[in-house]
């Protein structure tokens, strides 16, 4: 008997997505998700973006999530469909990006029989998701989807996967709406809503006492929302404390503000790393003491009292032992710190840290990001600087691939707002940037979205150009083309006697013709005189553009803390020589 209160699993999924205010889904059809695709066919609230390979769907969902602050959603079929997203799920887990992945599974009765396009999806994705589900009973589908969205976006965000066997997509049940679900608190792990007053008081007391304080801000600040960034700016302005951010923290604090020391870490600024090394008070706001940031652990900021605000308990004392920590949301905590300072009329005016700023300004004089642009070959650093100058007045989002170009982008492109900078940090996924740009452009149709790319990374997900063309997404792919896997080559030069084993990318396509063959637009700059015009042309075209920027093939990314070295042992240029003992130790690290 047909019951009008009952819906198929596929329809329940669509209802739940609507309930969750999802308007965009990235996906690729296949046998085990056909009932869902059939449901998508007959509706109009949800825009489906057909990618060209599932890896593109997951990175697009990441780009969508990062640039919008919403949960990114993707839909893939069983077997190869879902194994293709394993990299992206891991990427989202490492970088705390909220996404929900719906995967089809072979019908329940075939599970375990090595059926066509069957794989152990929950088994394969267990270590690379925040949580995952295999839904065997259609009556559990509604609450599972709502819980998945809640988990993906709560506490430290991350990817959640829901595997739905094909028979469950056909089976019928009632739909339970989001408002009728009561979540079980222990499963959501949203972190405490109560700010630790003790922590706040201790911190303010230590700020008053300290002579060399520093803020060290990471992606957690981004995930805490724009309010966190606003409170951070207030706090920095009030205290005049210098601030450095991680790769993912870029944009949480305006990069051009005088208090900003820029990015720290392996390719961070000299002044940022030295300040971390010499500070007496470190205030970590949502960063996780990653190895790319700390350098050699036993020499990491030896003389500082360390405060750590992080919603993720497991990030506390994992790599670096801290003196004070709190597991509460960053926006709430920073707000409380600001209001504590205001209500107690604490004035930092007389405590301008003049000596400390004097020391920092000495370090700044090293001009660690200085480069010599000649009058012929384009320096990659210069290409990014010009791109920044020519786009900074626009509403711009920047994604990147992974490698030298990514670090140059982080160094030379300045961000004034959070969520404008979308990059693969933790996992370092080549091929991330272009599909991420597709996602960012879907979420921000009127903005300028640029993928700063290397030619090697770009080739890894090049098929997604077709997606951009199909959906008329005017993304710009700005390739710093040096014909090398530049970062691999740089490490081979520094650590392996310049034996450039397999790092030269031979037989590259003609990117201009390639763009044209996809019905996109190709532009090219071969030398410095063509650079600005090419960038301006790229920006002015309202279609997907591939800009092939020929840059100096041998340029390396500096400054650099070699693996195994400490913050104060930075190399500023290729003329700096590394301590040979560190070099041997560094070789075995990543």
């Amino acid at each position, binding site marked *: 008997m047909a019951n009008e209160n009952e819906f198929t699993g596929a329809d329940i999924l669509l209802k739940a997505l609507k309930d969750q205010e999802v308007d965009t889904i990235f996906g690729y059809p296949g046998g085990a998700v056909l009932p869902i695709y059939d449901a998508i066919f007959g509706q109009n609230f949800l825009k489906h973006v057909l990618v060209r390979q599932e890896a593109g769907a997951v990175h697009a969902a990441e780009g969508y999530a990062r640039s919008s602050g919403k949960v990114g959603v993707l839909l893939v079929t069983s077997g190869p469909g879902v194994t293709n997203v394993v990299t992206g799920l891991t990427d989202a887990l490492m970088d705390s990006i909220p996404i929900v992945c719906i995967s089809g599974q072979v019908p329940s009765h075939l599970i375990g029989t090595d059926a066509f396009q069957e794989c152990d999806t929950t088994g394969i994705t267990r270590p690379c998701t925040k*949580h995952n589900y295999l839904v065997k009973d259609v009556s559990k589908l509604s609450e599972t989807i709502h819980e998945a969205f809640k988990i993906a976006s709560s506490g430290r965000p991350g990817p959640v996967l829901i595997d739905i066997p094909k028979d469950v997509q056909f089976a019928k049940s009632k739909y339970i709406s989001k408002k009728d679900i009561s979540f079980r608190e222990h499963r959501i792990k949203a972190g405490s809503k109560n700010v630790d007053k003790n922590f706040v008081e201790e911190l303010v007391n230590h700020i008053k006492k300290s002579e060399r304080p520093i803020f060290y801000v990471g992606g957690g600040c981004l995930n805490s929302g724009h309010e966190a960034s606003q409170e951070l700016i207030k706090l920095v302005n009030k205290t005049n404390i210098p601030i450095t951010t991680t790769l993912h923290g870029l944009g949480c604090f305006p990069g051009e503000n005088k208090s900003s020391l820029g990015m720290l870490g392996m390719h961070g600024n000299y002044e940022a790393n030295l300040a971390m090394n010499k500070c007496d008070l470190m205030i970590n706001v949502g960063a996780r003491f990653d190895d790319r940031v700390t350098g050699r652990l036993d020499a990491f900021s030896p003389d500082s009292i360390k405060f750590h605000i992080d919603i993720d308990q497991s990030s*506390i004392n994992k790599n670096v032992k801290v003196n004070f920590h709190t597991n509460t949301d960053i926006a709430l905590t920073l707000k409380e710190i600001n209001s504590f300072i205001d209500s107690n009329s604490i004035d930092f005016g007389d405590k301008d840290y003049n000596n400390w700023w004097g020391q920092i300004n000495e370090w700044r004089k090293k001009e660690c990001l200085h480069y010599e642009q000649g009058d012929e070959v384009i320096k990659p650093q210069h290409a990014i600087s010009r791109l920044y100058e020519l786009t900074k007045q626009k509403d711009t989002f920047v994604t990147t691939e992974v490698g030298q170009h990514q670090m140059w982008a982080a160094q030379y492109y300045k961000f004034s707002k959070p969520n404008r900078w979308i990059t693969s940090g933790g996992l370092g996924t080549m091929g991330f940037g272009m599909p991420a740009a597709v996602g960012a452009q879907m979420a921000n149709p009127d903005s300028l979205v640029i993928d700063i790319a290397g030619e090697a990374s770009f080739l890894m997900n090049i098929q997604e150009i077709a997606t951009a063309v199909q959906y008329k997404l005017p993304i710009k792919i700005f390739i710093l083309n040096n014909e090398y896997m530049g970062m691999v080559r740089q490490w081979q030069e520094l650590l392996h006697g310049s034996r450039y084993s397999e790092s030269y990318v031979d037989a590259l396509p003609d990117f201009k013709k390639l763009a044209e063959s996809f019905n996109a637009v190709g532009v090219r700059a071969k030398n410095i005189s063509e650079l600005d015009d090419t960038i301006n042309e790229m920006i002015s075209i309202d279609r997907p553009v591939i800009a092939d920027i020929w840059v100096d093939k041998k340029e390396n990314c500096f400054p650099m803390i070699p693996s195994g070295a400490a913050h104060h042992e930075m190399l500023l240029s290729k003329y700096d020589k590394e301590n040979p003992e560190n070099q041997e130790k560094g070789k075995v690290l990543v």
Partner: protein
Amino acid sequence: MSSTSVYPTPINAFKQSKRSVLSVIVDNEPGILARIVGLFSGRGYNIEALNVTVVDVKKNLSRITIETLGEEKVISQIIAQLEKLVPVHSATNLANLSESYEAEICLIKIEFENDEQDQKILNFADIYRSRTVQKRQNIVVYEISGTSERINKFLDDLDTIGGIKVELVRSGPIGLGI
């Protein structure tokens, strides 16, 4: 270890060690054990012993007891990682509780050849208050419970009897805080 046995121990043989017993309350759902075991193997922690059973049918809860080795810092990190898993309600290091009890159960099948061996086995079995599960001509099966240390001691003592064949199964330690 602050854990004490629910059974009296003949010799106080507790040693200071890096051994920890973790008690984890979880939703009893498919894949939960795989999540926990995967967390340990993926992050390079050791599992020395593991015990999983439903303890509350109504609320659908299982208690997982894990014996592991590591410095305090590592154990804290393991607990933080366990508590991040969605179906986990709580993870506790029993050593951190002011009062906790632990016990393990062991079934031992012993094959002996002569009366002298039989007497010695009986003697040890009596000292350790093991329960006879089954006895035939030259085979005896005992059940012994107590702390893992106590069972180890019993097995060490049996080892001093030459010429017997021992086969055994152990539950791994389980524990409870008060």
